[in-house]
């Protein structure tokens, strides 16, 4: 294990102070915080952040980014998430697509997409899940057929968050038929323009009635050769490493923090002994999980690949996000109503309704634990 205590440098402390000051002005007290990275899609906020240099931080300057460290990104992300900032528009492109482009993309693809991502203007969705393909991604059926100058893609992707607002998605599909005993071979990632002819996006209403998920049906969608991401046939390896990028950041343990803060604001200083226990317990665990997550960011900057550590942080962090909701529900002793006029109870209602997704998105708890357990035994 590589979880080492890590101290922030004066420059990192200064960055954090700057973000805090910005957020205090931008999101005044009383604003309704978003819960987690997918909480609210707000292109204007994304652009404002980008102007500050807080989008595309890991992207090198030659592609319009800022070449910052994983720890710098961590610090900005945790401030945004703790404040409940609406970062849903750019977050996935920033966290996941940009590193994939940097690792696997062509020079042309990098130049085409990265500056827009860093500007907070180009948004990506993920194109992995299908009706019959969830954790077992190797079973995807969407297929691409070779045509003059590129591919035509046909198939259906589901649970595609924000496809109706985003610009592109990286589609995992089969570019050659299944070979006996090599089910991971023959898969590739293609970057598909969500506004291309043949792309049909229809909402899959979220359990709280909101529009977040989509079904994206692809019918003979033409994808030019230059939109193949990485090597043909390496889609599986790329996607699994892509999952690793997104594992252990603050977005995996801070989604419900604003609910706790607003509960405390409502309760005030005179909490009961029982309430103090709830608050202290959650705060203690928050601190501990944060330190684990920060140490993974530091290890990444040091050039290591803490895959098992990242899986552990995501597992413990996402389950904690859910535990927090239940602890506050028990403490609050109230009937929940999303339409409540008071901030805390309506946030808690939102959290109860959305928190089951935390241990599903980006790799279910069960899959993560298998990954981590194999690493522990090694």
């Amino acid at each position, binding site marked *: 294990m590589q979880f080492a205590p890590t101290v922030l440098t004066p420059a990192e402390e200064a960055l954090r102070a700057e973000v805090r000051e910005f957020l205090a002005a931008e999101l005044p007290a009383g604003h309704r915080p978003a819960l987690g990275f997918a909480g609210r899609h707000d292109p204007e906020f994304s652009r404002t952040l980008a102007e500050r240099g807080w989008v595309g931080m890991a992207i090198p300057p030659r592609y319009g980014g800022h070449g910052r460290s994983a720890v710098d990104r961590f610090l900005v992300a945790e401030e945004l998430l703790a404040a409940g900032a609406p970062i849903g528009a750019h977050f996935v492109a920033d966290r996941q697509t940009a590193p994939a482009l940097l690792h696997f993309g062509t020079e042309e693809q990098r130049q085409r997409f990265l500056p827009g991502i860093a500007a907070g203007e180009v948004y990506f969705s993920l194109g992995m899940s299908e009706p019959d393909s969830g954790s077992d991604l190797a079973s995807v059926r969407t297929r691409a057929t070779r045509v003059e100058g590129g591919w035509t893609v046909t198939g259906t992707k589901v649970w595609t968050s924000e496809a109706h607002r985003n610009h592109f998605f990286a589609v995992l599909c089969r570019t050659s038929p299944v070979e006996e005993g090599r089910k991971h071979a023959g898969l590739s990632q293609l970057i598909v323009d969500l506004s291309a002819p043949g792309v049909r996006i229809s909402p899959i209403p979220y359990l709280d009635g909101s529009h977040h998920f989509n079904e994206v049906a692809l019918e003979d969608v033409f994808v030019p050769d230059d939109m193949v991401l990485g090597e043909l046939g390496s889609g599986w390896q790329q996607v699994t490493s892509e999952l690793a990028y997104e594992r252990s950041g603050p977005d995996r343990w801070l989604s419900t923090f604003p609910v706790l*803060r607003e509960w*405390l604001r409502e309760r005030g200083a005179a*909490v009961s002994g029982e309430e103090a*226990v709830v608050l202290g317990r959650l705060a203690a665990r928050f601190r501990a999980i944060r*330190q684990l997550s*920060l140490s993974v960011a530091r290890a990444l900057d040091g050039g290591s690949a803490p895959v098992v550590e990242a899986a552990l942080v995501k597992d413990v962090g996402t389950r904690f996000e859910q535990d927090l909701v239940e602890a506050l529900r028990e403490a609050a002793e109230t009937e929940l109503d999303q339409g409540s006029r008071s901030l805390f109870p309506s946030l808690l209602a939102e959290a109860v309704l959305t928190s089951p997704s935390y241990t599903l998105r980006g790799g279910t708890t069960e899959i*993560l634990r298998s990954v981590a357990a194999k690493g*522990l035994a090694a």
Partner: protein
Amino acid sequence: MSDDRTVLTEVATGLFRDLCTPGDVVAAEATGWSERLWSALTESGFPLVSVPEEAGGSGGDVADACALLTVAGRFAAPAPLAETGLLGGWALAAAGLELPEGPLSVAVGAPGDAVELAGRRFSARLSRVPWGGRSDRVVALAGSGGQRFVVSAPTAAATVTNGRNLAAEPRDTLVWDDVGLPDDAFAPAPPGVDGAALRLRGALARAALIAGALARVAELTVRYTGERQQFGRPVARFQAVQAHLVTIAEEAELAGLAVSVAALNARPDPSFLDVAAAKAAAGEAATIAARASHQAHGAIGMTKEYELGQLSRRLWSWRDEFGSERYWSRELGHRLAAAGADALWPSISTGLVSEPASSPEGSFA
């Protein structure tokens, strides 16, 4: 980890590996004591790590002492390591009192305890004193004439009633009934040496022991489930068992890092926020990991010979000593509530604090 601390950890690990085997730990349960282990620890100066050399200690800082305790926890060491140095030794040294030759213990005020100092007459009833009957002296705080005193109460003058924690470690009740103290047995307590500070040190020490024990529990469980075959394959290959392994690893790492940060931030003294959070997190981790490791082990874990039980029984004891997770959560919660909603995130996101410019690098032995 500093180079000094790495060496300290390595040397201590070697010592415990030789003198504190699972067999030694079982053997020590009858009396709660291993003279062989304690002599070796004393010879190496380990019990007095973090007590200044000029006061007769071994030097080093709180983080060094916690690194040692983490090793001790890993080996389920039956020895009052924390009580002698980090707690009792610290208080005596701060008050300018002499350190005794043998083990020290400490009382931070269990419910029902009473301490009375009138002139040099000392009466006290102290319960759940770790290795109380084995110690040369017990350090307690007493108010007298509007002043607070550090008392180094001679165990020989007390009536001892033996008690045990769940791991059969001595937790004794000592009674002094109007005993005359010698001059060198009490002194005014300097600022900062009070019940709250002792309790913080005790909680940090127990959290460090828990972190060490959890690391070993994690190793044992990975090893056992990798070897144990059922249905024709190692049980670690079953997803349900893997979930236990992952849970244990998470809790062990979470507690370990919380303790490291609290210990490293103690320059020179541990802070309330760090320790309250670390002890609360470690106590919760102890509960979760002990349960998961026993489940993953099956019946072998329920036997006295197998190492797991030595660790889990300590986890179940240490989580309650010097304040349970509920106690520290409540204290922490009240503090955080008083600071207000907008101060909550800054408190949570305070981790390891940078080294002050003038930090003295002490040696440890």
